[in-house]
């Protein structure tokens, strides 16, 4: 069983605290993504689970077995893991086949069994015909597949992936995303995936954990929960482009400061200090009549969508609309034109949190 649990783990390098009393659990067979900005300590957590580093405090168990903490420290080779590194870490002096076969060297399988296992996993990652090549003769994407094959060949309980797609170009990244998902279904391994790329995280994961810059876990949930019901402003801002308007409340009704249009924002309403309403670019639209008055500052036709920058009050908002819809409706506005903005959805946050970030 491949449940990974991390409890109360703390890690510091010299005076720099990287992780502070962090706890999380990855269920058996689950694909769990740790999402956070660079430098937030997510790679450190992965290295702690792998056994490349030892925690200063706290415990780590894999499949119910204590591997770190309480005076125990199981070395990486005894943790039954597969690891895929950001820089692939494919050995340049070995062929694709020899790279892939390496983990089996430490198992009791006989030679034909081994060869079959290697060929099967190479076929799965689409490198079946390239077994005798050296890594220098492969593209970046192919090298990444070798790293994946090597991590999977021994059927580890847990697969650790450290930003494995960030060195690939956009098309390859998309392709590999689906492939990793397929491979996981096939192998049934527990995956702990570490990345700063929210798109990958949302597409791939069963659950996501959001780490902030200080190494604290902000929210854990399914991609849908995280995206739809962000726990706080930081989580909300981390998942894509966001804009904010200043809100003034009158009972349940709210309006954007300086305008008369009533709104019904969602979310908790802390009764201390000013509040802002946040939305994503597709959660608002430009309208001919009514809406909150604003001025179009920038128009960029991106193809299927049009990207607007609109000034409302003292803030600049990002709004995106489908091109065909814009053409049917008010037509492509010119920069400087007055317009109305209608919001489909607004989430309330304390304004203090926002200005604290900016």
């Amino acid at each position, binding site marked *: 069983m491949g449940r990974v649990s991390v409890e109360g783990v703390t890690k510091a390098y010299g005076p720099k605290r990287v992780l502070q009393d962090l706890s999380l659990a990855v269920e058996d067979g689950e694909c769990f993504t740790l999402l956070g900005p660079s430098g937030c300590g997510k790679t450190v957590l992965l290295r702690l689970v*792998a*056994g*490349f580093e030892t925690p*200063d405090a706290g415990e780590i168990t894999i499949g119910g077995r204590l591997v770190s903490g309480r*005076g125990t420290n199981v*070395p*990486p*080779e*005894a*943790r039954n*893991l*597969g*690891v895929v*590194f*950001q*820089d692939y*870490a*494919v*050995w*340049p*002096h070995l062929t694709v086949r020899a790279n892939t076969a*390496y*983990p089996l*060297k*430490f*198992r009791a399988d006989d030679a034909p069994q081994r060869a079959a296992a290697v060929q099967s996993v190479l076929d799965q990652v689409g490198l079946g015909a390239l077994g005798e090549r050296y890594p*220098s003769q492969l593209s970046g994407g192919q090298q990444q597949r070798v*790293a994946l094959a*090597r*991590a999977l060949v*021994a059927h580890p309980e847990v697969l*650790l992936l450290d930003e494995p797609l960030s060195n690939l170009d956009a098309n390859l990244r998309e392709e590999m995303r689906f492939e990793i998902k397929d491979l996981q279904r096939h192998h049934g391994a527990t995956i702990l995936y570490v990345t700063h790329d929210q798109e990958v995280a949302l597409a791939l994961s069963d659950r996501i954990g959001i780490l902030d810059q200080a190494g604290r876990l902000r929210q854990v949930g399914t991609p849908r929960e995280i995206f739809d019901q962000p726990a706080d402003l930081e989580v909300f801002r981390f998942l894509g482009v966001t804009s904010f308007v200043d809100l003034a409340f009158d009972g349940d009704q709210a309006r954007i400061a300086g305008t008369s249009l009533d709104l019904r924002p969602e979310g908790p309403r802390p009764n201390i200090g000013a509040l802002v309403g946040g939305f994503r670019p597709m959660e608002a639209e430009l309208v001919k009549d009514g809406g909150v008055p604003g001025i179009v500052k920038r128009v960029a036709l991106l193809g299927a969508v049009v990207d607007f920058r609109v000034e409302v009050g003292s803030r600049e908002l990002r709004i995106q609309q489908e091109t065909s819809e814009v053409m049917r409706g008010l037509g492509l506005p010119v920069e400087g034109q007055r317009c109305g903005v209608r919001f489909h959805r607004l989430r309330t946050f304390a304004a203090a949190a926002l200005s604290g970030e900016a």
Partner: protein
Amino acid sequence: MRPRRFGTAELLLLLSILILVVVVAIPILLIFWNAFVVEGKPDFLRALALLKEPDTLEALKNSLVIAGGTTVLSTIIGVFFAWLVSRTDLPYKGTMKVLFLVPFMLPSFIGALAWKILLSPRGGHINRLLMDLFHLEDPVFNIMSLGGIIAVETMYLFPFVFIQVSGALERMDPTLEEAARISGAGLFTITRRITLPLMMPSILAGALLVALYSLAHFGVPAILGTERNIFIIPTKIYEKIYASGGNFEAIRTGTMLSSILVLSAAAILYVQSLVLSSGRFQVISGKSMRPMVLKLRGLKWPLLILSVVYIAITVVLPTVTIFLVGTLKTYGLAFKLENMTLDNFTYILFKWELTRDAIWNSFYLSLSAAAVTMLIGTLISYVLVKTKIRGKFLLEFLGVLPFSVPGTVIALGVILMWSGRFGVNLYNTAWIIFVAYIARYMAFALKSTSAALEQVHDSLEEAARACGATKWQAMKDVVLPLIKPGMVAAFFLIFLPALRELTTSVLLYGPHTRTIGVAIYTLNEDGETVYAAALAAIALVIIVLGQLLIKRVTRAKIESA
């Protein structure tokens, strides 16, 4: 924090520190101790008084003049030829570039031997020829002078500057010069205001290497100067240790002079690291670009002829001389076929015990020293580059020491350490040369293996661990195969110079432990010029074969990668 246990990493660190302390640090400490401590008390005044002896003062002055002169001359010649082969349309540039590196291969003391045969004031062949031709009373050249020593050292040291500068000139971003040209600057202005300042760090780095080498060099001044009472620091140390039969004052003078050598070497290396880290290299990119080329027009062929003549005089002439003299039946006979014989070579190679032993000694000493130093160097580099443990700074400090210790100093240091002072007496055995070689060539091993290790990213080793390999298995399967080229390079970087080495072994040899270098040197001292030349010729053949071997090995490596 849990208390750290004493693990493998700590053990390796301790072992590395121990080796460097025994091999390098204690010998150097003993030198300073002997120089400045009298009867258990520090005494700088008496130490300084020793330096004021006229002959010591003279040696210091000569060292300064020779090192200075050689550096300036090598820099001028090195920069000029580097510019010629990388920035002009000189015909046969590629071939010339290779030819300018050939002097590197020739041991300079063999060159000095050849020049002594050709240009010594009375007996030199060229001098005699000129005197006969023009009915002169006095010889035209005197190679056995300060100027002569500077000239000969320059011939064999200028490639240090040449390599640095031609490399930098080729890697320099040509757009920097083109930008100046578009701004309306003429070629002379561009060279003076743009190119030269950008090349300054490379020029300085090369010049400092020449200074470092020349300051510590024994062979050329020993062969050309000692006979005429021209001493420099290393030859003075040799004279003090040998001529005075090892009395205490003589050894103290030797250690004083050695201390000066160590301190100047450290100063030179410090300046060099300042120059290299000043960041002015950033305009030079790693990739090769097409540099701006000056059209020589009418000067094309004259400059080619000048280059060819330079190579002919500095490389071909001395080499041919060595081979020819090596075949003479008796020194002084004319170079005629009836005076020549190949018997000298068979005698030296197979019959004469002294030379036979010397060749054998050099072979097994350099082979074993190269193998052992390479392995120790790999161990130390591994700890330095790959581990993160407390106390590493100590190793980092000790690791710099081997770079700043000249060959003469090492020799004196191991004499002080291994002559029974600590219960082990290796004096007059091959072992004392062996430990000296390890200390002397440790820097080469550290440089080459740490460079190789730095290129092996940590994740490669960690990937093996994650696959189920233990630390040692990961090392054997991943790290070692990947740094093998660096280790092979380290081996040859030590083996070849050790094979022709003179500076260190000349202070350490015993009746049965002559090296090739020592045998050539002592044969020449004893007036056996013909045998010295014949042995030198054999040494040259071995060196050329060795260089060809390296080329093949390293090329095979590149192709398989």
